[in-house]
């Protein structure tokens, strides 16, 4: 089996296996799995809404998938993308609100910088804690997620909410900070669909992450640290530095979710906006085999499911959109326990030989 085929095979098996298990669950609750899956996946294919919303929802998942990927490549598990993107979204909105009168030429780059740097900063905290004190980044990123959510909710509630607004959201950002939606360029593509240039930025980031990890010295050192830390250290690479750098890059990528959310979609910080983007990013990176190209496809799959979930809620009798999260969980479980399929294959093969001889 060639390398590429192997890389494609396991994710594919994991997805199919998850759909089978999900199908059994759907049968148990009394619906037809084929109908449910048709709703779930078919919704994404309509033009312009299905495709527009799917690409829109894939955007944050590409960013968080890349974020988790960079961590993984350095041997780190960034479960903190969720917290990083909340901090970044608030920071981005803060810049957009504070400098509301500025022209786009200055304001948009400043907002981009706010998104990337604040996400990088929040992720660098567990990086430094690991490098300096050896404390586990998984625990610290989980804790920082909760701290981030509480912190931005405090700032929103006490300092940046419009007086009398019952919704937990900030005042709007300046019009100069808005980035264009696709409707501006594509004829017949309505502007109400929030797909915006952040999607193109996400694709660009896939290329940049690839170049960074596989074509630069820093990227090489990060990967060396991830694949064999003691050998890397023996080879003169400072592991501590790589940990902090990788976490910061990871957090910066997670922070770019803010560009899509704040500058391209809601034009303000909206509390609790993230539909588990940070955690879905883990699924995206794993299913994408920790490769930027894989991340794009995995993000598209999960975005399709998320968009289709709304239709499942509306049109099926028993199944709710929760099936999306169920499928996601099962997919990660299967991807994680890859050796399960090897184990299964070894047990199936002798049976097949027996049946072939008959």
């Amino acid at each position, binding site marked *: 089996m060639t390398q590429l085929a192997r890389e494609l095979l396991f994710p594919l098996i994991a997805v199919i296996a998850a759909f089978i298990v999900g199908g059994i*669950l759907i049968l148990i*609750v*009394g619906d037809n799995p084929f109908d449910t899956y048709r709703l779930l996946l078919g919704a994404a294919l309509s033009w312009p809404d299905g495709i527009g919303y799917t690409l829109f929802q894939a955007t944050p998942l590409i960013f968080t998938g890349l974020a988790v990927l960079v961590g993984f490549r350095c041997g780190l*598990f960034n*479960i903190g993308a969720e917290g990083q993107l909340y901090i970044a979204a608030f920071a981005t909105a803060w810049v957009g609100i504070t400098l509301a009168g500025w022209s786009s030429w200055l304001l948009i780059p400043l907002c981009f910088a706010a998104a990337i740097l604040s996400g990088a900063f929040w992720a660098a905290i567990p990086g430094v*804690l690991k490098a*300096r*004190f050896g*404390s*586990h980044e*998984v*625990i*610290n990123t*989980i*804790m*920082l997620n*909760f*701290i981030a959510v*509480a*912190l931005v*909710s*405090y700032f929103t*509630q*006490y300092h940046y909410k419009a007086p009398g607004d019952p919704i937990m959201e900030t005042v709007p950002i300046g019009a100069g900070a808005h980035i264009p939606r696709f409707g501006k360029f594509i004829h017949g593509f309505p502007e109400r669909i929030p797909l915006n240039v952040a999607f193109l930025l996400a694709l660009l980031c896939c290329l940049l992450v690839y170049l960074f990890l596989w074509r630069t010295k820093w990227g090489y050192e990060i990967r060396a640290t991830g694949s064999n830390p003691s050998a890397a250290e023996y080879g003169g690479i400072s592991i501590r530095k790589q940990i902090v750098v990788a976490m910061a890059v990871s957090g910066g990528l997670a922070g770019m979710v803010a560009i899509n959310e704040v500058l391209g979609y809601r034009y303000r910080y909206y509390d609790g906006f993230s539909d*588990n983007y940070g*955690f*879905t990013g*883990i*699924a995206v990176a*794993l299913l994408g085999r920790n490769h930027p190209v894989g991340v794009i496809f995995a993000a598209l799959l999960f975005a399709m499911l998320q968009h289709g979930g709304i239709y499942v809620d509306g049109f099926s009798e*028993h*199944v*709710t*959109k*929760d*099936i*999306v*999260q*169920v*499928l*996601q*969980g*099962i997919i*990660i*479980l299967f*991807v*994680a*326990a*890859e*050796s*399960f399929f090897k*184990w299964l294959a070894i047990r199936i093969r002798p049976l097949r030989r027996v049946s072939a001889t008959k």
Partner: protein
Amino acid sequence: MRDIFTLSLIASTIRLATPLVLAALGGLFSERSGVINIALEGKMLAGAFTAAAVTYAADQKLHLGNASPWVGLLGGLLAGLFIAVIYAVSCIKFKADQVVSGAAINILMLGIPGFLSGALFLSSGSTPQLPKDHLLPQSPAIIAITVLALVALTWYVLYKTPFGLRLRAVGEKPEAADAAGVSVARMRYSGVLIAGILAGLGGAYLSIGQSSLFTRNMTAGRGFIALAALIFGKWRPVQTLLACLLFGFTEAVSIQMQGAVKLPSGEDIPVQFIQMVPYVLTIVVLAGFIGSSRPPRALGVPYQKEN
């Protein structure tokens, strides 16, 4: 500030700490055997949902009356155990990354309760309301005694029995334990399954003790607070209990405060800052600023038997 420290606050601290203690003690068994348990959250959700659904069925369909919450509690226990079996098999038998499988379980359990309640109760993620007299006992005295007994039992099992010795050995030096004839896999299965049972019970107490129904994502991060308490308590039973009480207290304060409590200077203490306390403390203690909190040496490392 003085009026915060009332008897009702102490009672509510005990009530709120109870699910944390149960889940954290569960995490203790799992992590001392060398298996990370970030899936406590998912196991609690499984326990909470199943307990509420089973209690409802026992009450409405089987007319078990006062016995129904106890049947529900058993249901919660079994649900936690069931999830733990999946987790254990993937981590121990198939040597999956423990953090990844844990994250998968958590995501899965965000979906499953909603999925099932949509089908069973035609609701969007919650179970029907249970009658108030068909819930688990809520008297702080009874709960406190039960919890203390459980902590004492955990301490005894962990430090005074051969089982506890083997469990700890497997979490610290699996090779040595293996060489001494201890089955690493069996001890880790035990640790993870006990964790599932206790976290399931903790979740059950949330839905049929503190509350009278299951609501969508009702654990709201309590599994992670339990994990934090375990780390803050340095993976030891009594310290973990104290950490849970502290975190239960911060939750009780933040519930009582809801905008009402003011500092003597007349300023509000934003509730968000109270909510942050457990997480900040955990980071601080894990970094070694307040004494050192050292995880079991083999935590998170799948054990590969040498041939």
